[in-house]
């Protein structure tokens, strides 16, 4: 029972962290129809920035302020990174075939990974402990970190805020319009470049928050540590129906829980294989996912 509870808890927290990444994928895909392969690496970069910022700020600020200031700055820098990537690598290709944009995304991912290898010298970096999150707590006989408890609540709060933003603000309306029909939205006076930039900013912001939660649990960061969580989050986004935010969150929790169950069993080698098998089954059986809208191809 205790074992089952501990698996469930870690699954839920993992799912929450994937959810924050998956929202970035699903929003970008909803508007640009682009799998942003670099998103997982933005997530990794957010973690690395936090590592370097705290060691840099450690000499400048009093000890109590280092972590909060580092967190704020790393989130801000990640948002800027996401914005710059969109402007530099995706905007010039707006009228190009979709394959070119995807290749550009793969190129950005390759660049970020190589940059990370260069900066870290290929050595794993330890994520700083965030007071409050890293402390252990015991629930029903299961000891776990606070981050495990906080993650699902934080995710739900952020998602509610995000849906409010999308449903009740002007920029949210513009985003919905752009996702529905790119060209008509443009004709109606929606500034597409601004909308796309906002999408990337929101996605990167959530990825940065997700990385703070994720790396508090799995402390070492290597240049490749963004790749697999990124792919799993993408699978979650497809599972929930790509383009749908609640879908991405539900999908991410399901993927997180099933991953943690498989990791706890004797089949742990196959945890990633299972995730991808799930992806293929969904794509073949119900390509629109749980909550996705049906798309018809026009000739």
């Amino acid at each position, binding site marked *: 029972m205790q074992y089952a509870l501990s698996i469930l808890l870690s699954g839920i927290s993992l799912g929450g962290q994937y959810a924050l990444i998956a929202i970035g994928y699903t929003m970008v895909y909803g508007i640009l129809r682009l799998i942003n392969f670099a998103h997982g690496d933005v997530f990794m970069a957010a973690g690395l920035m936090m590592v370097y910022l705290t060691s840099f700020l450690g000499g400048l600020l009093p000890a109590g302020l280092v972590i909060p200031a580092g967190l704020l700055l790393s989130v801000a820098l990640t948002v800027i990174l996401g914005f710059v990537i969109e402007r530099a690598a995706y905007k010039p290709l707006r009228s190009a075939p979709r394959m070119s944009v995807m290749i550009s995304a793969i190129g950005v991912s390759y660049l970020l990974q190589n940059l990370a290898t260069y900066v870290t010298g290929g050595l794993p970096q330890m994520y700083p402990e965030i007071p409050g999150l890293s402390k252990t707590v015991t629930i029903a006989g299961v000891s776990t970190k606070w981050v495990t408890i906080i993650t699902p609540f934080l995710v739900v709060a952020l998602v509610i805020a995000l849906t409010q933003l999308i449903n009740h603000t002007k920029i949210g309306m513009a985003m919905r319009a752009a996702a529905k029909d790119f060209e008509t939205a443009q004709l109606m006076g929606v500034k597409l470049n601004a909308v796309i930039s906002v999408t990337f900013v929101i996605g990167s912001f959530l990825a940065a928050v997700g990385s703070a939660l994720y790396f508090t649990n799995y402390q070492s960061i290597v240049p490749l540590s963004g790749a697999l969580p990124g792919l799993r989050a993408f699978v979650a986004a497809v599972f929930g129906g790509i383009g749908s935010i609640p879908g991405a969150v539900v999908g991410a929790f399901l993927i997180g829980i099933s991953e943690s169950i498989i990791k706890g069993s004797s089949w742990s080698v196959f945890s990633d294989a299972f995730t*991808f098998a799930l992806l293929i089954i969904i*794509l073949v059986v119900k390509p629109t996912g749980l909550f996705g809208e049906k798309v018809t191809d026009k000739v």
Partner: protein
Amino acid sequence: MQRTNQKGARTAFLCAAALLLIVLLIENLSVFLPAASVPKIFQSTSMLFTVLKKGVVYSLVAVSMNLLNGFAGLFSLGQAGFMLLGAYTYAILTIPVASRDTVYYIYNGSAINFSLPEIFGGGPVGLVLGVLLALILAGCVAALVAWLIGLPVLRLKGDYLAIATLGFGEIIRAVLQWDKLGPVTNGANALKSFPTFSSFNVQNDAGQVSLRLSCFVPFLLSGVCIAIIVMLINSTYGRAFKAIRDDEVAAEAMGINLARHKRMAFCISSFFAGFGGGMFAMYANQAQARTFTTAMTYEILLIVVIGGIGSVSGSCIASFLYVAASEWWLRFLDTETVLKSGFKVPLLRNGFRMVVFSVVIMIVVLFFRKGLMGDKELPDLFRRRRKEGAAK
């Protein structure tokens, strides 16, 4: 038209034969001439030969990926998975029986106790036949798995297909590293001691190399495979692939069986990826599932993009450029350098090479979207020049 085609084929054949001869000559310079008189670059330990071997293996894999992405319009990212299948099939079939116990020491020996080169009687004949058969089987295994994967996956389109094939690559890797398959695949450990390119060097009685073939053999194998792919592209099937790439609906309306042709392109491309994977194992002297990651697929995809999507000769040229740049020419970026004046060149440190390299790739992707050759082939360039000359 018929005559020019025949003439073109003859010219291409002659060029390929000349290239093979040049490779053979260059690599044997250090054998035929006294060691002191040979420039350092042609010595047998030179980086040149590593680059040539790796480049020619990558050419084959890149062309096979180009067949799928550039000619059939199927954006697949499973190439590393198929290479992995090929590499393992090749290795498992050719490890000599005597070395099996040492290779599989963790699993107390291998479950498969034969080796193709030995079945064919060992010696040079057995080596050639065994390796050839093992490589072809490697391709067949990859093609068979591709056929199975294709059943569900080829119904997907565009980026969904890309992500599903990427997923299958990861699944293949996980399965081959599975502990329970250990007696066959050696688990997560490397397979080694199988025949490599150097095994083809002819030795005299004193044990010295009397004729070097370690570069010639991969060039010959890749050359034949690429020639087959080119012939396929120029056949009716190739034209059907291009029609599907340009417009699926129109192609279907013209009576092209979409499912059949897509499956065929996928299987053929995987066959050559598997063949290339076997050759990659020969180049690397070992086969380990860890090396065939998604990063490798990306690498090959970037080669295809640099060479020009839809150009076979572009892929080949880009492979050599890519391998030479990353393994040889840009090496200096990874070592800290202090100039004679005492000035320490900034930024040069381990890993900088790959950063510069990826920036260059991004520039190609963003600003030179057609790559080196666009969708032209090498002969096209000459032909146009000749026509311009005639017009004057």
